[in-house]
Each structure stands twice: as C-alpha cells, then as structure tokens.
C-alpha cells in the first residue's frame, strides 16, 4: 500500500513512469517486500525501465513535433523520465553495494541502454523471489533477481552470481527482437497518429477542428465541450464517435447528445491514463482486464476474442466506418486486429492524478508487451501468454453443430438459432459460430455429448473449493474406516478382557483423552449386541400374539396339580391292585416296597413328561416283559430296569405299569383356556372294561388319599368306556386317563387271549393312545429343540382353532408340518420368519395332492399323517395359507394373527436399528457438543483452505 501511495504521490509528472515509486520501494526495502501492491509498482517500474530510456525522448519529441497540444505531455514525459532515471540511480547506488558491488553497474547500464523487458510471467516470478528472499536476504537480493533478467537479455554472465538465477531460465527470451518490436510498434503508432492528424488537418483545411477539439477537450479538462467546427462541410465527422452526421444540425445535436458526451469522457479518461502512455505506447490504460482483447483501431472497439473481432469486422458498423474513412481519405488501419494497446491516440491529456489504479498499470504493461506479436507468433511468447491468460486457443474447432437448431421464418430464412445444449438463442450466424467455439458451449458438449472432449477449464474459486472439500471428505472417510477397524479390534480385545476379568473395562482408563471417551460412547453402544438377532415387526407381532395365547400361570398350576394328583392316585391304585393280586405278599417284595417308599428322590409324578412308572425296583424282574412291551411301543425308558427279561415273578406282573402325560400337556402346547389334558396308562395286558371300571371305582379314594391335607378339591371320576378311558375332573380341568397296552398292537388272534374280546377296550382307542405316547416322545425329542418351533405350533394351534379352513389340519400333522419346515430352514428362525415360512410351505403347495405328504415318523410304514384330508380341504388350506403369506409380506400379519396391529417401534429395544438412527442423531447434535469432532474438522478445513489460498 505504501508503494501505491508513493506511486500516486509521484505521478504528477507522468503516470507511466512509476519508476519513482519503484525507486522508493527499492530504497525502502521492507515496504517492497511486504506490500502487495508492490507487484504492480514493480512492474510499472520495469516497464519504465524498458521503454522509458529508449523511447520516452522519442515520444516526447515526436509528440512535440506533431502537435503543439502535446507539448504538455512531452514535458511531463521528460520530467518523468528524469525522475525515473534519478530514482534508478539512487536506488542502484543504495542496493548494489549490499549485494555484489562490482558487477551491477555495467549490468544496469546495459539494461538502461538496451530496453529489454520480459513478459509478465517473469515478473510474477520476480515477485515470488521477492517474497521468498526478501525477508532473509533483504531487498538487495530481490533486486538482483529483477536484474537478472536484464542480464539474460544482454547476455552477460553476471547473472550467475545472483541468487535469483534459476528464474532466469524460463524467462530467457529473444531480447532484441522484442525490444526492437517495442520500438517499431511504438513508432508506427506514433506515425499513424501523426499522419492521421495531418490528414485530418488537410481535409478540414484549417487544422482547427480536430486539433482544437483535442486540445480543448483533453488539455483543458474543465472546458464543457469542444466548439463545433466553424465551417460548413459536406461531411460532419465526429472523430470521437467516428461517425458522420448528415448536416450541421444533426452534428450539433450529436455533440450535445448523451452518447457523445460519454464517449468524450471516456476518451478523456483514456487520454489521462494514456497520456504518458502515448509516449510509452500503452494506450487504453483505463480498460481493465484487457487480457488478450483485440482492438479494432478503426472503430475503437475492443473485442474479447478473435471471433468477436471477426464478427465485428464483418459487422455493419465496422463497414460503415470503413466506408466513411475511405470517403474521408483517412488512413484505414489493416483489419489485422491490434492486440489491445496500440497508440491509438497521440492525444496528450492534462496529467491527472490518482486515476490509474495500480492494476491498470500492469494491464498496460502486459498488453503493450503483446501488442506486436500476434502475427509473428513467437513461440515462447505464445507459451507465456497461454500460461498467463488461459485464453481460448484460436484453433478451437466448433463442436456440436447438430445441437443447434435453426428457427426459420415463414420464408425459410434462418431467423435465429437455438443451442439445445446450452439452452440459448442467437439471431446471428456469427454469434452461433462463436458460441460453438466458446468455452461454455464446449463444456456443455463435454458434459452432455462427448465426455472426452478437452476443454480448458479455468478453475474458478468455487470449483477449487468444491474439489478441496471433496478431497477433505475422502480423507475423513478413510480416516473413519481406519478408525473403525482399529476401534473394532480394540472393542474385541476390551470385551474379551472384560469377560475374562483380567482387564478393567475400557472406560475408566485414565490416559484416554475425553475425546475418545465421547467417541466410544457414541459408536460403541450400537455395536455392543452384535450377535443379537434383530427383531422385526413380524417377530414382535408373533411374540405378542404368543403371549396372548399362552396360558396364565394360574391355569398351568391348576392343571399341574390335578394331573399330579391323578398320577399319584393312579400309582397308589396300581400298588393297591398289585397288592390285591398278591395277597400273600412276599417278605422281600414287601421290603422292596418299603424301600421304594423310603426313596425320597423317587419320582412322584410324571412332571418331567416321561413315563411315570409304577413299577418299583424290586419288581424290575417282574416288569421285564412289560418293559420290553413298552419299549416296543416306543416308550423305551419305561421298563429299562426290566431288560433282564426274566419270567414274571410269582404273583404275576402289575396290571397298571405306568402312566405318561401325552398330548398338549406333554408337548407343552397348552393354550389359554385349554382344560383337557390326557394321560395314558400302560397296562400289562389288554385293558378291559372290567379293569377300567375297577380304576373308575377305586380312583376317587386314592385321589382323596394323595390330596394335600388342606386341599378340599372335589374330584369327580367318570367312566368313558367308549373312549377306553376314565375322566378325572375337578370341575374346571378334565384329565382323560386312557388305558392301553403295547400288546394291543398285535393282532387280536396272535396273543394269548385269556379274556373275552368283548371285554377288551376298543382297539382303535388303545392304538390311538399308544400313538399319542409315541407322538409325545417324538415331539420331545425332535420338535421341542427347534428354535421357535413350539411358539409357532402354539400360534398355529390358535390359528387352527380360529379359522375354519385350518381346522381339518390335525394337530399332529400340523406339528409335523411345522417341525419339518423349521428343520428344513437350516438355521434358527425368528418367530416371524418361522410363521412366514410355514405359510410359504403350505402356500407353495406342500399339502396339495401332488405333494409328498407328511410322513409320520412314529410309524414304521410310510404313513401320511394327513392322508385322509379331502382335496377341497387341501385346496382351502392352501388358498388360505397363500393369502396369509401375502398378508404377512405386506405387513398385515396382525390380520393373520387376528390381533390389533402393534404400534411401530421407534427407537427403544430394536438394537439392530440403533446404529443407523443413532449415528444420524449423533451427527446432528455434534455441533452442540463442545468437544464435537465435527467442529474440529471444520476448523481444520478452514485452515486448509486458507493454507491453500495462501499458496496460490
């Protein structure tokens, strides 16, 4: 800033000669190194150094010679030169002794003598050098850097001794050429201006109008506007606007018009900025950001690109001006575009203060650098230029012709064009051409049509930021993954340690920073119950339904009590019968009986759902045969003690060998409201009606005997000969006690039949009871161990009870079905899955006629447990299951289960849903946490961004 101020302070004489500034900057070395504006200032200086010595005199002289009006500027230029010169010398004197005293002097001279300045690129490098080196080495080194360039131009070896030497290599350019060109271009510019002036004078005859106008307008500054030309003329030409007017009246009006005034003001400004620029060849200083702008000198129009220029040249306006100028006999510059600058005006203006911004200066310099070269196309220069400006190369091929549709008028003439890619319209074929070459269009084409098209992208600040953010995110993601792995390992170890008891749990550990603590809390929790099975909505419904149908504790206890009493009473009855059968009880037998009674660990009833044998140990031998029979019946545990297989002891075997719970009770399938349970008593021989009657008569007495003292339950025993059973009832719970025997399986003729067949209980009933025994055994062995199986069978029992279509499915077949379905799943199923799978199996046609049937595992032969189901029932069953299946699939399991839909689970217990939701809320609240990690990242990001921008 200081430099800039200095600059403005010094530019009274000639703005272009910022040498004074630079000198000051060089002299005050600290200011130079720090101030950002110094770049521009330095540049200006160089520029001055370049052109100044060589051309300033010339310029001044030329201007003087050409027009009186320029005297002012010439003086200014001269004085500026002086100033700069002195500044240089001063500064050189100040700086060089510090660095390398002997050499700089000739170098400097050379530089002064041969104005050779390098491109903007080199200057940028210079400033870098300055920034880097100034701090340590002081301004001297930086200065040296600046001069290295001049060295290289003059081809001296002195450059080697300078610290900034590496930078000279890229900057090395053909110095003479550029210098020459600088001169020639400037000369031609001057010449042009001069001749134009002369021509104008000649034409106008008096030399008044133009000169006067310029003099007045630019030189005076205060003056309102130029006087109209005094004499009548065919052509009223306004040089500012470069138009001709039809007559004096219109001309006058034009001059008073807004447009003209604006132009005039602009010209004045330009003149002020380029007043010295006229000398230096840097016109158009006021035009900011010239880039590679092309100028049409004739029309004084600046075009942003070659295409625009071409369009302009073809344009009607340009043509008009050309025509006019031809008419006027004015020189017409070649249509070759001038890269902005060109001494378009030799008009000197009143020196103005504080107009040209420092940025403007650089523009001037850079454009003037280029002004000469476009036709020649110097390679190095070109490269530099591209590097500098990222301008669209002239050789760009138009693309996407197909996507520009012509909108034609009625006469078939193209009225306008519409680019479908960019969604824009043009009325002009030229504009269309330009658009097709333009960056925007090419980008769209790349984006939408040909992804591999090369478009030079000027990365905007925004894009760069996006890219940075993306990179940052990637980084963070990698980090997270890495951390996750670490964390999981850590958790495992800690978990193990925790369970092994060797290590203390992770959280009280001291050295972990609080940040870690937070982290573990946030992430550790959801991953805790890894092995836990998630609970779906279906599961919850099934479990809820199950809880609903599961019998209450009271009911279970009641049933348990009644069954237990019945069993004890039966045992007691069995004992009594045995005693009765052997009235002269042997001593040993008696003793054994006593012994048995003494055994406290002996089974009291059939609570474990196994056969409750009435046979005492002493009777083992006696029970041998029965035992074998029981084993044959599938109740193998019964008489295992009797495998000795000896003949029956004296007095014969017991008539009632044992009792076993079967059916719902044994399988644990009781539902709420179930009151009927079954017991099966195994008899030694074919159970007869006589025996049944005996049991029915005696049982009440024994029941009363086994009752607890305070128990006043009234048991009622009912004889059901048709069922081959007696029913014990306490009013609410009915226990059906069936009598059966293994020998019933043998054909009636086969055995030693002693009794009348009529007396024997119905065979089928006895066989059913035997089958029930086997089913209970099978269930306990196979089905009960499958996960979810018992729950689902209970649910299915409920289903069969509720839904008529399902009623024909007999309980055992249903159990077989469900267990088979569970077994085939190959893995543990959750209740919801299990129910669905059952429906899938039935719905898929398992029970239909062509299906394999349900093989009864409790029979030796192949028996279909569902063999008797009529086709219509199968059909209905299948159809119902199919409907249920789809209802389950579409979350209407509550309809299947006949219950209210459960409310949706939000967070709470569903551990498996936890991670996701938790994480979400985690990130949401993070901003609030003082230790939140998000914050850290944010600041880090900021830091990165600032670092990056600092680098650039």
């Amino acid at each position: 800033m200081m430099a800039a101020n200095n600059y403005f302070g010094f530019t009274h004489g000639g703005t272009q000669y910022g040498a004074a500034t630079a000198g000051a900057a060089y002299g005050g070395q600290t200011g130079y190194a720090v101030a950002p504006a110094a770049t521009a200032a330095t540049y200006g200086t160089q520029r001055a150094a370049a052109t100044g010595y060589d051309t300033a005199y010339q310029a001044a002289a030329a201007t003087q010679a050409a027009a009186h009006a320029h005297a002012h500027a010439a003086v200014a230029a001269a004085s500026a030169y002086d100033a700069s010169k002195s500044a240089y010398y001063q500064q050189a004197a100040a700086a060089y002794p510090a660095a390398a005293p002997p050499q700089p002097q000739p170098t400097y001279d050379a530089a002064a003598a041969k104005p050779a300045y390098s491109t903007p690129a080199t200057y940028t490098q210079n400033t870098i050098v300055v920034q880097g080196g100034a701090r340590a080495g002081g301004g001297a080194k930086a200065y040296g850097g600046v001069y290295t360039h001049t060295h290289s131009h003059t081809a001296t070896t002195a450059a080697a001794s300078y610290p900034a030497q590496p930078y000279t290599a890229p900057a090395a350019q053909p110095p003479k050429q550029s210098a020459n060109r600088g001169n020639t271009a400037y000369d031609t510019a001057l010449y042009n201006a001069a001749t134009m002036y002369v021509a104008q004078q000649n034409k106008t005859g008096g030399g008044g109008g133009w000169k006067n106008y310029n003099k007045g307008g630019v030189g005076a500054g205060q003056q309102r506007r130029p006087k109209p030309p005094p004499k009548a003329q065919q052509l009223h030409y306004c040089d500012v606007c470069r138009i001709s007017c039809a007559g004096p009246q219109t001309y006058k009006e034009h001059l008073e018009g807004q447009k003209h005034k604006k132009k005039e003001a602009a010209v004045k400004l330009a003149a002020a900025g380029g007043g010295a620029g006229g000398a230096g060849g840097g016109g158009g200083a006021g035009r900011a950001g010239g880039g590679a702008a092309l100028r049409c000198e004739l029309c004084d129009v600046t075009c942003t690109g070659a295409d625009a220029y071409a369009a302009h040249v073809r344009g009607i306006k340009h043509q008009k001006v050309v025509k006019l100028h031809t008419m006027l006999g004015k020189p017409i510059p070649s249509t070759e575009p001038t890269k902005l600058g060109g001494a378009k005006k030799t008009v000197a203006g009143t020196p103005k203060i504080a107009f040209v911004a420092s940025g403007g200066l650089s523009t001037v310099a850079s454009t003037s650098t280029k002004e000469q070269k476009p036709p020649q196309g110097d390679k190095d220069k070109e490269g530099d230029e591209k590097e500098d400006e990222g301008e669209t190369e002239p050789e760009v091929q138009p693309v996407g012709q197909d996507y520009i549709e012509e909108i034609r008028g009625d006469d078939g003439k193209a009225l306008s064009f519409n680019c479908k890619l960019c969604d824009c319209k043009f009325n002009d074929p030229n504009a269309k051409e330009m658009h097709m070459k333009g960056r925007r269009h090419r980008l769209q084409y790349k984006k939408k049509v040909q992804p591999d098209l090369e478009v030079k992208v000027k990365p905007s600040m925004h894009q760069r930021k996006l890219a940075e953010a993306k990179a940052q995110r990637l980084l963070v993601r990698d980090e997270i993954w890495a951390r996750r792995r670490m964390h999981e390992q850590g958790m495992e170890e800690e978990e193990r340690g925790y369970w092994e008891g060797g290590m203390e749990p992770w959280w009280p550990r001291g050295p972990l920073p609080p940040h870690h603590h937070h982290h573990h809390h946030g992430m550790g929790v959801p991953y805790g119950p890894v092995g836990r099975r998630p609970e779906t909505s279906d599961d919850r419904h099934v479990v809820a339904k199950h809880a609903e149908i599961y019998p209450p504790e009271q009911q279970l206890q009641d049933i348990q009590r009644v069954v237990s009493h019945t069993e004890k009473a039966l045992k007691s009855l069995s004992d009594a019968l045995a005693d009765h059968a052997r009235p002269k009880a042997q001593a040993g037998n008696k003793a054994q009986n006593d012994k048995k009674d003494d055994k406290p660990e002996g089974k009291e009833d059939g609570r474990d759902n196994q056969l409750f044998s009435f046979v005492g140990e002493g009777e083992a031998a006696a029970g041998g045969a029965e035992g074998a029979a029981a084993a044959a019946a599938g109740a193998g545990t019964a008489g295992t003690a009797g495998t000795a297989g000896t003949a029956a002891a004296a007095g014969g075997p017991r008539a009632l060998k044992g009792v076993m719970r079967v059916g719902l009770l044994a399988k644990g399938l009781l539902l709420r409201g179930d009151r009927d349970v079954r017991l099966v008593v195994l008899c030694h021989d074919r159970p007869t009606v006589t025996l049944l009657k005996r049991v029915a008569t005696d049982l009440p007495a024994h029941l009363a005997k086994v009752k607890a003292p305070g128990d006043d339950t009234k048991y009622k025993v009912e004889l059901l000969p048709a069922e081959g059973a007696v029913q014990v009832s306490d009013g609410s719970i009915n226990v059906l006690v069936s009598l059966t025997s293994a020998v019933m399986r043998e054909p009636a003729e086969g055995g030693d039949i002693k009794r009348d067949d009529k007396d024997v209980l119905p065979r089928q009933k006895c066989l059913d009871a035997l089958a029930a025994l086997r089913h209970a055994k099978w269930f306990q062995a196979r089905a009960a161990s499958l996960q979810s199986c018992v729950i689902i069978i209970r649910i299915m029992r409920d289903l069969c009870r509720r839904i008529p279509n399902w009623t024909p499915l007999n309980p055992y077949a249903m159990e077989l079905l469900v267990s088979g379905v569970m077994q085939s799943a190959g893995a543990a199923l959750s209740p919801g899955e299990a129910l669905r799978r059952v429906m899938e199996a039935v719905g898929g046609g398992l029970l239909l006629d062509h299906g394999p049937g349900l093989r009864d595992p409790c029979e030796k032969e192949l028996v279909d447990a569902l063999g008797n189901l009529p086709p219509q029932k199968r059909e209905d069953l299948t159809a119902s299951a199919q409907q249920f299946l789809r209802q389950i699939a579409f979350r209407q399991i509550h309809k299947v289960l006949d219950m209210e839909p459960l409310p949706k689970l939000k967070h709470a217990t569903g551990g498996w849903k936890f991670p996701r939701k938790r994480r979400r809320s985690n990130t949401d609240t993070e901003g609030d946490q003082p230790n939140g990690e998000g914050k850290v990242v944010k600041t880090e990001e900021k830091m990165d961004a600032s670092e990056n921008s600092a680098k650039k």
Partner: protein
Amino acid sequence: MVRGAGRGGRGMPGRGGMGRPPFNRPRVLMLRPPFDLILAEPAFPRCKPAPDDSALTQALLKRHAELCPTPAEQSAVLSLVTKLQTVLDNLVVAPGDFAACQLEEVRQVGSYKKGTMMAGKNVADIVVIMKTLPTKEAVEGLSNKVNEELNKLMRAEGAGSVSCGCHERGFTVTSSGAASAAVRVLVTTLHQNLRKLEPEVHLDYKVISSHLAAIRHSRWFEENAHHSSIKVLIRLLRDMCARHSGLEPLTPWMIDLLAHHCIMNNPARQALPINVAFRRALSLVAGGLFLPGCAGLPDPCEAAHARAHTALDLAAQDAAAATAQTLLRVVARGGHRYVLGLQAFEGGKDISTEITVWDGVVVSPLAPAYQETPEPMDTDDKDDEGVQDGVAA
C-alpha cells in the same frame, strides 16, 4: 500437538457427509430364501406314490414346440441381425464422416442371443455402447445412418428394405421382407458416463443402465444357463406370464433367473425334469419368492445382495404372487392345459381370475393383500429393505 493432529484427522464427517452410512450392517443377511420343496426334501420325504405327471410333461413339451420360432422366422431375423451387425461394426471401426456419436462396442443381447426367442416375436436385440453420451440427437443420427447403410446393403443384395424408428430405448430396425423381422438397437454408453446423464438431454438413466445390464445378463446366461431344459422352461414361463395379467410385470430377466433356479438349483445339481421344474417355478412364486421380505433370487449381475424381483413395485409383487398361487392350485387340480395355453379358457378369459370347479373342488382366486395405505408402510423394515436394494443395485 500429535494428539491434536490425530484428533483432527479422526473427525466425523460433516453433516452433509457421505451419502450412505458407512457401516450399515446389511440387513439383506436377514432375508432368507423361501420354502423350497426341492431343497427341503430331507425334511419332507415322500410318503405317498408320486403322482403320474406324464400328462403335464406331454403338455409342456407340446406347448414348447408351439412356442419355438419357425425356421423361416429364424432365418429372417438372423439375416437382419447379421447385416445390422456388419453395419454397426463398420461404424465402430471406421466412423468416417459419421459424427453424430462415437461407438465403442456392439453386442447382441436378449432372447435372440440367449436362444429363447418365441414364435411370433421375431425381435432381436442389439446393444450399442456409445463412447459419447447418448443424446436423443445422437440416437437419431445413428438411426439415420444405420438406415441409410443398411438399405444400401439390402439394395446391393436385392433383399427388400428396412425402416428405422426411434424410441426411448434406441431405435428399431424393421425389415419388410417375406418373413418380417425386427432388431431393436438399444443404445447405452460407457459405464463411466452414466453419472453424466441428464434427463432432458439424454436417454433415460434407467434405460441406459438396463441396457448395460442386458449385456451382463447375456454373458451370464451364456456361461450358466445354456442347458436346453432352462431354455424350454423359459419359453413356457414367458408364454404363461404373458397370458396372465398378474404375471405380466415379471421381466424376462426374472424369468431367466427363475427358470435357471428351478432347473439347476437342487441338491444333485442335475437338471430337473421339466414337469418338476415347472411345478417348482409356480410353487416358488406362489410361496412368495417375489414378495417383499424374501431373499428372492439374488441377481448375479448386480452388486452384492441385489434381488431380482425388486424391480417390481409392491402391487405387482402381490399380483404376481397371487396369480401364481391360483395357477398353482389350478395345475394341482389338473388344469395345466389352460395354464399352458394349450386350450383357451372360456373364450380367452384369464383363468387366474376366475372361480373354477375341478371334480367338485372349487378353486377360487385370491384377493390382493397389498393396499395403498394412507400412512406409508416404508417406515418399517421390509420396505426399507427394498429401498436399500435399490441403492445397492
């Protein structure tokens, strides 16, 4: 200092973070395959004599013979495909002045490639992979070019002419020879270009990626499903699906996968007889293979855990299952002739929507279970799964 750096690096992602939660435990693991009687054989040993299925087998074979394209049809489509392939290959190798698009590759896909074409549907498919992005203009340009070249070729051979018509998938080349044939040219682009697609300018993203998928499908089919039983079953199933409204939404790819699964996926890994496989296919779909919450058939050509049937919407899944359920019961009652289309049912009515009586057994269609509920069902797990699959695919 060190700790600070570490902590910074470990930062959680910002809230605009990464699209997908990084550690989602894929719930797809939760899904299990449906009950499949063939695989569940050990649990349900046959305990009654297998029914005589020869009637069904005969019917299946007879129907298949009807469904196979005639030699004339085959040669017509073959000649058209060969010519078109030539033209397109030329465009790939030497585009010349053709600038509307750049072609990367041309591949035959679909039923023609798989050898599962059906009689009366003489349409082959060719996928053209463009190097450039598939704009509608590019497709049009390609279509015109192909039309021109192909007609040149046809004229040289004196073999009639072709016409091209553009549509949203590409364009269709139809030959107007004696036996009409058509080739659908399906346009797609390179995989890396997929995310550059814009709905207004280019062909639809879904269409484009489905064409890419078609290439994968063809390749998979070639490698895995060349068994002719599979092709027979595919024809039969496609025909069956086409004739029953509920099964219509099933895509050819689903049917391919289903047929392959039914024929090959058994403990013995030997092709099953066609009648068993046909029953199995019906039974699986009826058993909810294509219902939400079921593992269904994993799509071998998509990213892990993608399920083939998620392309169907929920109502279609329900309808497909319900239709298959009814058909299953009809077939079980001996109505396979109607299901296979050997015999029109009551003047062309859809048997899956009618109440039928077979030997006194009433078989009735089922009501749909899926309802458009006012409050969306997607807050729960099942539909989430569907969504996730969508993401995964």
